[in-house]
């Protein structure tokens, strides 16, 4: 019942990460394993350290100690750009979109397309190409927006979240972190996001899903890793785990790995 990466080659690993914010220890020796082409759900109670772990693995925060390995080799992810260079993209729980920019501008944030030739060298944007490409990607991923030319802040919470998810999925080449990607969504949109997760997995990109929604986790994940009090306490294969076991691991009633 304890899968350890499906036996597939490890793509991304974290070893014994520690991170404190002042006197609060968010991570107390957390580990994490991810293989190519799998969907891993990262679950845990509030304050278990899920978001901090994701921030460390996506370069937003740096762990105080511990090791991050990609393809078995240690790497330093000292900025979001460094993580992105390894093909790691993240849709953050706090969305991290620019509310005053339109969906296309948000999709291409930090990766703006420039015009060919001299005008591009001067820094001129190719707005038409970005708009066209964005419309294409949104329709491919099933993101429906009534108006693609309005600031993203005027869209509904669900649409904003869909754009944030789409942005991470479009640019990822190896790993996508989705931190509570369905929290603000209605039933239909939620199903679309889960469809996107499966589509992405089928292209060989690994997906890490952080979620509080257990039925959703069991529906889409291949494996489940459980965090409690800043450390991994259990790993399960989704096909042979019960809801009771998951809740037990989250609350501390059940522990597989040694507490630190």
């Amino acid at each position: 019942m304890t899968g350890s990466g499906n036996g597939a080659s490890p793509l991304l690993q974290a070893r014994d990460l520690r991170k404190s914010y002042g006197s609060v220890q968010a991570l107390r020796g957390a580990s994490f394993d991810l293989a190519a082409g799998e969907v891993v759900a990262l679950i845990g109670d509030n304050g278990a350290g899920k978001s901090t772990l994701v921030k460390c693995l996506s370069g937003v925060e740096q762990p105080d100690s511990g090791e991050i390995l990609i393809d078995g080799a240690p790497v330093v992810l000292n900025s979001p750009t460094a993580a992105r260079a390894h093909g790691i993209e993240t849709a953050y729980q706090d969305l991290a979109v620019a509310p005053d920019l339109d969906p296309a501008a948000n999709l291409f944030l930090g990766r703006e397309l420039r015009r060919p030739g001299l005008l591009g060298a001067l820094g001129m944007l190719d707005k038409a190409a970005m708009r066209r490409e964005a419309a294409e990607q949104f329709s491919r991923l099933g993101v429906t927006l009534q108006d693609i030319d309005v600031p993203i802040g005027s869209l509904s919470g669900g649409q904003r979240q869909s754009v944030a998810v789409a942005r991470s999925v479009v640019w990822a080449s190896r790993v996508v972190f989705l931190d509570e990607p369905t929290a603000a969504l209605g039933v239909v949109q939620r199903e679309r996001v889960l469809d996107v997760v499966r589509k992405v997995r089928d292209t060989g990109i690994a997906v890490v899903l952080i979620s509080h929604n257990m039925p959703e986790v069991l529906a889409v994940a291949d494996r489940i890793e459980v965090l409690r009090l800043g450390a991994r306490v259990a790993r399960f294969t989704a096909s042979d785990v019960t809801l009771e076991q998951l809740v037990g691991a989250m609350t501390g009633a059940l522990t597989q790995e040694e507490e630190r």
Partner: protein
Amino acid sequence: MTETEVREPAERSLVQRMVAASTFWIALVLVVLCVLFSALRPDAFPTLFTLQTLLIEASVLLVLSVGMTFVIITAGIDLSVGSVLVFAGVVAATLMESLSGGDASDAGPGVVLAGLVAAVVGGGVWGLLNGLLVAMARIPPLIVTLGSFGAALGAAQLITDGVDVRTVPKALRDGLGFGQTLQVPHMVALAAVVTLAGAWLLHTTRFGRRTFAVGSNAEAARRAGIPVRGHLVRVYTGVGLLAGLAGFMSLAYFGTTTISGHSTDNLNAIAAVVLGGTSLFGGVGTVFGTVIGVFIPAVLTKGFVIVGVQQFWQPVAISAVLVAAVWFDQVRRRSRDRG
């Protein structure tokens, strides 16, 4: 073929956006003011002379305000522009005097050019300092630029012992200050070039796009790989460079350094930018709006003088419009954030 497919909806939305934008309404206010004053004094207001003086008097403020637009879009502020303008003017004037051995009145184009470089560099240094303190030391821009507001003026007074430099090359005064080509004053042409360049930079380039992104959500910009701190340094440096240029223009127009004459330039520039629909909370704004925002106070002042209203009504009227504009922006934001 694909081009027409994309362009058509884009054009339609441009019209929609124009009507929806607050700049459309504020532009309408400007038009109404011009029509009103023209109707009241058809002999005096709608004349070439009035237009020329109106434009010349607004050109220095316009250059400052174009830079201020960028800073405010990043959710920052620059209170130091007026003092930096004075500092740049003083540096340029003293350099030109010392290059011509005391009296710069008959100095040639080489000396004038040296003065221009000194003004722009002098302004840029203050801008760079502001930018480094805001972006790297993370001191709120209000405090940083309040500091340089005092320090730049003090430095200018130290250089001249508090006395205005009064000899400015005749070539500069006649060429830039009073010169015109085909009825277009050179001051106005220079301000127009700066404004167009600013609009191009803000609305069509990656630099402009990132300026909006930083002001809209700096953390999102950082996570998207945009070098937020470096960008802020460049924006504040740009404002400093423009304030330096404005100082040189002011020198050309007034023929003296006018050390004590720019203490409210910062507030005038901020008022112009905010009137033009740029949000003090960052992420929203246009250079076109700023142009409107510069000319509403200018037209009011001119109009009140010509019509014979006490011109002290101008600040009262402007302040009312300004407060209304910010209120409008707040309401817009609140209704959006609820959605």
